[in-house]
């Protein structure tokens, strides 16, 4: 099963359950208060997911390692490599 189908299946199941509860398609007999909660649940779910996503991405950008040391080390190694390669007879004309 492709990821697309998995997603369609998951979203379909959630929306189906939601529709059943909202339009009384199953004898769940929710109280009016609960119905109100269920009615707005998808919206809240979506909003919390968006917030979670933004927070996660923000955190990961902020903690993305800057490898200053690796860059410096590489520069030194490049100098070393150039000297050694010249000694071995490499000509870069």
């Amino acid at each position, binding site marked *: 099963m492709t990821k697309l189908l998995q997603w369609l299946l998951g979203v379909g199941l959630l929306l189906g359950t939601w529709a059943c509860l909202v339009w009384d398609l199953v004898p769940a007999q929710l109280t009016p208060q609960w119905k109100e909660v269920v009615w707005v649940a998808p919206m809240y779910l979506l909003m919390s997911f968006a917030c979670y996503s933004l927070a996660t991405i923000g955190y990961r950008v902020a903690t993305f390692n800057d490898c200053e040391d690796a860059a410096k080390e590489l520069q030194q*190694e490049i100098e070393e490599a150039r000297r050694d390669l010249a000694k071995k007879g490499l000509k*870069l004309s």
Partner: protein
Amino acid sequence: MASKKGSDKYSVLLPTYNERDNLPLIVWLLVRAFQQSGHDFEIIVIDDGSPDGTLEVAQQLENIYGKDKIVLRPRAKKLGLGTAYIHGMKHATGNFVIIMDADLSHHPKFIPEFISKQQERDYDVVSGTRYRGSGGVYGWDLKRKLISRGANYLTQILLRPGASDLTGSFRLYKKAVLEKLVESCVSKGYVFQMEMIVRARQLGFTIGEVPITFVDRVYGESKLGGNEVISFAKGLLYLFATT
């Protein structure tokens, strides 16, 4: 351990295009890394007819380090990454293949870590990752980091690939596994790297990860434009619908 070192051989595939400045340096670093770790190796240079004389430099390196260590398999013109790997693999005598960029953004010092990671659980693929542990990047501004992290997050949510760095191209493969993967991948450019790792998971291959530092191109231009973003989006949707 000693007997393992005796029987395993690592073939490094280096596709190049206009890398005459970088090629000697990456080869020097590779040779040093392998000499220090004591693993058997060969470096296969696949130059796609670079007009800057990369091949001529490669021939000098062949003379310096020997034909058994530096293997030249040039092609007449630029033909794409996937076919470069197929071309290089045909001539690879190792039972493991390492793929990396020749522009010094990938450092050979991580290869011994890739190898010990592979041996740890006999992984089919070991992928370098910029996004985990001590991994990271150098030379990226905030915008680039944001795009990279955002794209990576979206990919993780949609594809759940079981690997944290999909667009990186510093990886070690069992040779037979790489052959199978290249065969089943159709994408171009760096979407190709993403497809390789996603298909690997789909085909049931095991993937290990090693944190790497990515030092963005020291010489030459680095590219991330609108075109890259669009081709990434297309690639993502393609993999979303087919894997």
